[in-house]
């Protein structure tokens, strides 16, 4: 029996190889369309605008007539780094956002996922309750919380404060960033929780059983057995945390419009690109935001894959 399979295998392989090498015309056309059309769309709608934005960040342009584009070299970047104090405020807010998400919101999401995975009582309820904000778009979340925390809103009404004496949740620099971060975490925790839960389900239960037989505590089990086993999910979670914190825009825009109440890089891009006073400073902000996001992600991924290759 083994000899027949040994003979069949090379024959089957040859057949497969043959099949792979000769595609009928129809196959090639189908493949061409299925790969070609999405690739074309991707290049036209994602890559071309991205490259164009990088080029435009080195020009002066109001965005109206292509003939008006003037080369500006690094002028926009100099303007941003040396002449625009609000840029540094926005950068500070984004970094605080990143640290908060990385140190508080994401770990809380992971913790929740781990607890729910252990099927504690009511885990189905917790799952639904924590995931609910994720179903809402950030804009809707902004509207809901704006309604709650405005000077003439629900919370100030509960506190019995008149409009003129209302707590300035969004205007006062002492509170506003923490209020916004709590609102963003409300959604982010559920999002991370769900990603991690899906990953945890895939972890082999025997690993955990083996660890508990060996006498490991919960924390040791998590740190030494489960966490390393979740390496692919960890990558996704970390990348998402970085992107979500640097990309924040919807909620801030809903609450503050494009004014500078709580400056963040996303709103600075919008303020300088959209609107009547469009200038390529917005493109420069976009490039800065892009570099801020992509550099840590690429560094992290390179490090991870280097380890994998080892």
């Amino acid at each position, binding site marked *: 029996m083994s000899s027949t399979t040994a003979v069949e295998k090379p024959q089957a392989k040859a057949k497969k190889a043959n099949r792979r090498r000769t595609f009928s015309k129809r196959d090639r056309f189908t493949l061409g369309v299925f790969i070609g059309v999405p690739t074309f769309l991707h290049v036209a709608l994602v890559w071309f605008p991205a490259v164009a934005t990088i080029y435009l960040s080195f020009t*002066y342009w*109001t*965005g*109206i*007539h292509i003939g008006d584009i*003037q080369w*500006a070299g690094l*002028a926009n970047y*100099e*303007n941003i780094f040396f*002449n*625009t*104090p*609000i840029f540094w*405020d926005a950068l500070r807010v984004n970094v605080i956002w990143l640290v908060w998400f990385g140190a508080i919101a994401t770990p809380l999401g992971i913790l929740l996922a781990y607890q729910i995975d252990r099927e504690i009582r009511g885990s189905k309820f917790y799952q639904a309750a924590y995931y609910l904000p994720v179903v809402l778009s950030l804009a809707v979340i902004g509207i809901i919380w704006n309604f709650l925390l*405005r*000077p*003439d809103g629900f919370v100030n009404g509960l506190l019995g404060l*008149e*409009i*003129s*004496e*209302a*707590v*300035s*949740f*969004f*205007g*006062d*620099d002492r509170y506003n960033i923490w209020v916004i971060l709590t609102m963003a975490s409300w959604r982010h925790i559920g999002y991370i929780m769900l990603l991690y839960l899906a990953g945890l389900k895939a972890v082999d239960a025997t690993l955990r059983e083996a660890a508990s037989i060996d006498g490991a505590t919960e924390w040791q089990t998590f740190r030494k057995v489960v966490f390393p086993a979740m390496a692919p999910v960890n990558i996704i979670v970390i990348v998402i945390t970085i992107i979500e914190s640097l990309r924040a825009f919807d909620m801030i825009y809903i609450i*503050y*419009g*494009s*004014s*500078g*109440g709580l*400056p963040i890089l996303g709103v*600075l891009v919008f*303020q*300088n690109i*959209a*609107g*009547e*006073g*469009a*200038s*390529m*400073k917005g493109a420069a902000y976009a490039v800065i935001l892009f570099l801020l996001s992509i550099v840590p992600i690429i560094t992290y991924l390179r490090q991870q894959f280097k380890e994998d290759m080892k």
Partner: protein
Amino acid sequence: MLNKITGHEVDRRLLLKGAAAGGLGIAGATMLAGCSSDSGPVSFGVRTVDESPVKQAQAIVDAYTAKTGIEVTPNFTESNAFQNNLSQYLQGTPDDAFQWMAGYRMQFFADQGLLEDVSSVWDEIGDQFSDSYKIASTGSDGKQYFLPQSWYPWGLHFRKSMMAEVGMSPDDIYNWDDFMAALKELKAQGLVPLAAADKGGWEAMGTFDILNARINGYNFHVDLLAGREKWTDDKVKEVFRHWEMLLPYQNTNVLDLEWDGAMQLLLQKQAGFFMNGSWFGGNFLEQSQEDYDDLWIVPFPEINPDNGRDTIDAPLDGIAVAKNGGNPGGGKDFVQFAASIEGVEAQLATGIPLTSANNLQDTSAYDPFQKQQQAVMAEAKYITQFLDRDTRPDFAGPVVGPAFQSWFKDPSSTDSILESLQSQWDALAPL
């Protein structure tokens, strides 16, 4: 093969001929519809979704359709969204006619070739407007691109009943010392003496404009906004020194309220004065007739006797025609109607108060609040359009707005804010 399925014997050639004829017919009809552009349907972009202005816009549309039989489609957009997207809107598929503002904000788009020249409309109905309005509607090439519809002054608003209760007579407030004394008195009564808002970034520009014009004069104000004077000048520091004196008398959550939040303070009788444009009279009227009748306005007090009260912010709102619209000819005809006395009368028929830019409006029919607005305007020799309409848009919105907001957060940082404003002006892209 189709014939075999349906069981009918349809001549293929006949089918093809019929389809061609039908297609040609449809194409021909569309082309003909496009040809008769002057009498085709017109689209009208309305820059608001608030109740009263929407009713007024609808009234113009209905009256125009009733008069000419041409169908007009109004498209209502929230004003911030409309303003933010105007550049893309005008380059893409704009409405034929749209509501906009006078001043540099209009000239900028005219210079880019996005507005239709409406000088021919001015030739027909230009006598219905005063000369200063014609100047405000003219682009940098001497042609007109805009038709004014309405104006409102910026001044100190208050409720007559509240002032009577406190025993104050704001009409007697003439100079800064009177004003400070009045604010002190109001504070002692437990009210917010001066309601203020700046969440949107633009509301505080009204206060800056009037302080600058009062302290330093109209010419300095215009020169500062055009970049001929420096923000780091001591004169501007003087403006902020006076502004700082007002801060203790304002509500503390200025950065948390937009103009309608501060208006609520006045509406709910929590505030004494409200320095704003008079457009919110419509909101008071929506609340009740008594609230509207209670509303009054006086000019901002004099600070520098050299300047008196000679300048006022009185922005001009109106209507323009987009060059890339589907029907510019129809658009021109529509704006002529809308800005003329017929359009004004259609709006007045809604019962909503309107201070129109049209000379022919029967001002004897004005209610007392409107007459007072006119009196406040008449006292001023010079009219400015408002900071964000009088200067470069890439300076007003992204630079000055946040600068004022950060000043409210830390009023002692005046010097550094002014230095940053000047360096950001210097670093602006060349036009």
